[in-house]
């Protein structure tokens, strides 16, 4: 039988692309290169002469849009921290969550917009840890297929953000589904797919204008069928054992590269310290400063994963492979943050919890390939039932991302049928605080707690329903989508003026 080439690459099932990306902890521009310093007017300080590759060369330019102080009252509030407040209130001031509690306990500042949300639900903005929006955008054509650099099994050097097309209509549809933050991953054709990027779901002319400020970068890796399928006839890997030898050889190289830089920094610090001491000595034979190693983008990303700056996202379906990956991570001293897809996570839910690894899963996708054959509807619930677990609902789909709430609802119902009853206030964590934690942004978003970004969704009813619709979506306190107001509904450059769009149009199309 014929199998479409695109489907074969579907890292994840449908379109198949994944990436991982993780922002630096450093503030944008905190690191400067020696070259820049050399051009500066001021005499360089010795510390500035030490070469350090920039950690954030494409810094976020996102700034929250104007927001008004807003008090939402009367709703059932699911905070994302496991709490449920009936007749609750959420107060947004200056783009941040200012207060959350029973309606009676929160009062509006003067001039605040008041929203009566009686009968409705309020949750944190939904976060999708696994998306290919922008890198596999709509329209899906050869020209826009930018998610898998499927030319070599190790393309750790590529960054998903350089493929993201901000005009993908999928971003707007996801917004209408309550998505406020998302991780865009390269595809899963490769053992090492490249860096991911974490975005705020705010339309922008540029990718930088969408980048989540201060979010770490991630690295996308892939297990199993996809890499061996893609490279089986072109030099390998053609087997799972070669997948592993490929990962390990790369980690060995990355460790050596990391050490080269660490040695250089140690030498350079010593050198410039010495030189400073000897700076007025003339006539001595001139000492040459240590030469920095040559930069290698591939190894730079891998070294970042080894030292923990870059979060590792591992596409893996089978239980036995996931456990082997955990051993490999121990061998090289890095951490796997999340297994993506993890269709067999239920078989090793105890291992995952003990090793503090998250599993990002679908509610019910299965059977599209052999490594997805053992899918069960209770996967999310069985992972969640373990103590200290980290279950995440993900989409990997431009359709699924519009309704992660429904995916969570199905998982909740299927769990209940086998006695794992998850409350709504708990299940909402699968698509808010748990992905935030796994993506390294939980200090900024993912729950309704004072001081956090006001990423907030008002639903017309419980989000755990097929009939639920996001009515209002706030990002950093700014109302970015309002189902009742066409003026609060973005349209991409691609769609504007197209037949049909003008009549139907906008984010909820």
């Amino acid at each position: 039988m014929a199998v479409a080439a695109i489907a074969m690459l579907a890292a994840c099932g449908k379109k198949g692309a994944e990436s991982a990306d993780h922002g630096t902890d450093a503030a944008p521009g905190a690191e400067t290169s020696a070259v820049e310093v050399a051009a500066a007017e001021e005499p360089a300080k010795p510390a500035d002469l030490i070469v350090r590759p920039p950690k954030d060369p494409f810094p976020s330019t996102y700034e929250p849009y104007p927001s008004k102080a807003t008090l939402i009252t009367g709703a059932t509030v699911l905070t994302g921290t496991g709490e449920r407040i009936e007749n609750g209130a959420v107060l947004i001031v200056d783009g941040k969550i200012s207060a959350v509690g029973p309606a009676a306990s929160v009062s509006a500042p003067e001039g605040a917009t008041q929203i009566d949300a009686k009968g409705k639900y309020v949750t944190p903005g939904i976060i999708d840890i696994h998306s290919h929006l922008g890198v596999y955008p709509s329209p899906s054509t050869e020209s826009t297929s930018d998610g898998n650099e499927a030319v070599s099994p190790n393309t750790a050097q590529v960054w998903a953000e350089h493929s993201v097309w901000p005009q993908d209509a999928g971003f707007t549809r996801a917004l209408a589904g309550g998505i406020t933050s998302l991780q865009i991953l390269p595809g899963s054709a490769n053992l090492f797919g490249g860096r991911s990027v974490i975005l705020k779901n705010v339309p922008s002319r540029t990718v930088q204008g969408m980048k989540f400020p201060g979010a770490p970068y991630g690295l996308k890796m892939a297990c199993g069928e996809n890499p061996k399928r893609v490279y089986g006839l072109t030099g390998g890997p053609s087997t799972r054992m070669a997948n592993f030898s490929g990962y390990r050889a790369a980690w060995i190289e990355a460790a050596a590269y990391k050490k080269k830089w660490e040695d250089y920094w140690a030498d350079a610090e010593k050198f410039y310290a010495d030189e400073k001491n000897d700076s007025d000595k003339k006539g001595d034979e001139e000492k040459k400063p240590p030469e920095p190693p040559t930069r290698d983008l591939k190894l730079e990303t891998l070294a970042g994963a080894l030292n923990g700056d870059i979060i590792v996202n591992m596409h893996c379906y089978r239980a036995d492979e996931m456990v082997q990956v955990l051993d490999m991570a121990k061998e090289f001293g890095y951490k796997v943050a999340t297994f993506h897809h993890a269709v067999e996570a239920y078989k090793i839910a105890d291992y995952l919890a003990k090793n503090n690894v998250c599993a990002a899963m679908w509610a019910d996708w299965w059977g599209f390939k052999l490594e997805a054959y053992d899918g069960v509807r209770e996967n999310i619930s069985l992972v969640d039932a373990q103590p200290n677990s980290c279950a995440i609902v993900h989409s990997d789909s431009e359709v699924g991302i519009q309704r992660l709430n429904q995916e969570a609802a199905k998982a909740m119902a299927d769990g209940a049928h086998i006695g794992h009853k998850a409350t709504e206030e708990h299940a909402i964590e699968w698509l808010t605080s748990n992905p935030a934690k796994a993506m390294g942004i939980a200090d900024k978003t993912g729950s309704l707690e004072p001081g956090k970004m006001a990423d907030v969704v008002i639903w017309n009813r419980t989000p755990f329903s097929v009939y639920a619709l996001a009515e209002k979506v706030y990002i950093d306190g700014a109302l970015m989508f309002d189902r009742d107001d066409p003026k609060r509904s973005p349209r991409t450059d691609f769609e504007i003026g197209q037949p049909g769009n003008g009549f139907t149009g906008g984010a909820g199309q």
Partner: protein
Amino acid sequence: MNGASTMKKFLLAGAALAIGALSSAAALAQSAASQTILIQNARLITSGPQGVIENGDVLLRDGVIAGVGVDLAAPEGANVIDAAGRTITAGFIAPFSQLGIEEISLDREANDASPDPGFPLSAALDSLDAYNPTSSVIAVERAGGITRALISPQAGDKLFAGKAAVIDLSGRVASVTKANAAQLAMAGYSGAARSGDTRMGAWAMLREYLSEAASYAANPRDYLLRKREDRFFISDLEALGPVVAGREPLIISANSAADIRNVIRLKSDYSLNVIILGGSEAWRVARELAAANIPVILDAMQNLPTQFEDLGSTMANAARLQAAGVTIAFFNDGGTPHNMRLLPQYAGNAVAHGLPYDAAIAALTINPAKMFGVDAKLGSVEIGKAGDIVVWDGDPLEVTTRPVAVFIDGRAMSMENRQTKLRDRYKDLSKGDLPFAYRGEE
């Protein structure tokens, strides 16, 4: 209601209990056709003239529906099931799928849905030649409330895919409801991609095939006298015979409004019985479709400009088509069989975007039955129709609702499948006296 002491009472109080009870019901019913079952006190959505009956009863006897109403008397020896608090619908019908012909999509060894490029035959291919009634996928979808499905080949690199059939999801050998239920053809970009990358090629070739099929049907002997290089494959033309005679529906994959207008013209030129598959912009041609009596099997979740033929995609498609009088049904994921069980979710989303609830239920039951000419037997809870019944633990369209019992031809189906067995094997991960491989068949 009759309280005869010979009755075997089963309660549907809880899902687990219900599954247990119905398994024993299934065991009792080895001679299925002779079994009599009365299901009582449910919210009964009939998809038929009786509409919705609160506290309704359904009597299944000899494989068919023998009674529908309130306070039906239980015949002697009947199994009586109290379904208070439950909802009953006719079994849902998947109008386009590869059930039983595709076990694993990306595994060549386990997917018979379409031929590799270059394979010569097309319309002649018959889904039933590849059909495996014991495919593990079937029991999984059945547990989700799907009782019948159209199974269709997918097109290889030719415009026609082959013959579709209607099957039931009982897993029996004798599970074919209707052979030659439809033929599938590609138009729109799917057609262009198989015709020199132009829609001109697709429409010219579709017409060529239909004309040749008509010519062959009119005079087979003359056709055979042609030089071999001037002939199409006879088996393909034979397969298209009932299509050009208007007896067998031709499902045409098309999305843009322009392509759909071409389909309407094609139907009129060749007197075909046409069904549109896809139809992302069908709402833009809704009145014309209604006037031409062309039904649409649509993906209720299509709201993105996936291709240039989908620019007008909207979640309101279903509601607008229905309002214009077009008969609709739903499919998903191009017919990949593994989540046919999500059809109710898709219908529910259409309701959230304006489709009337009753119309959504009809799209899952009576509409597909009509499309394939099996509505005399299937698609509603009416006396004389097949005993395809699903008992749900809530609103059937709600994502948190699951079936508690499924009947096909009056027989209680097992709710177990490979997935439930895997789940049960691994739901307790504590170490046992033997490896996990020993669990699950006790």
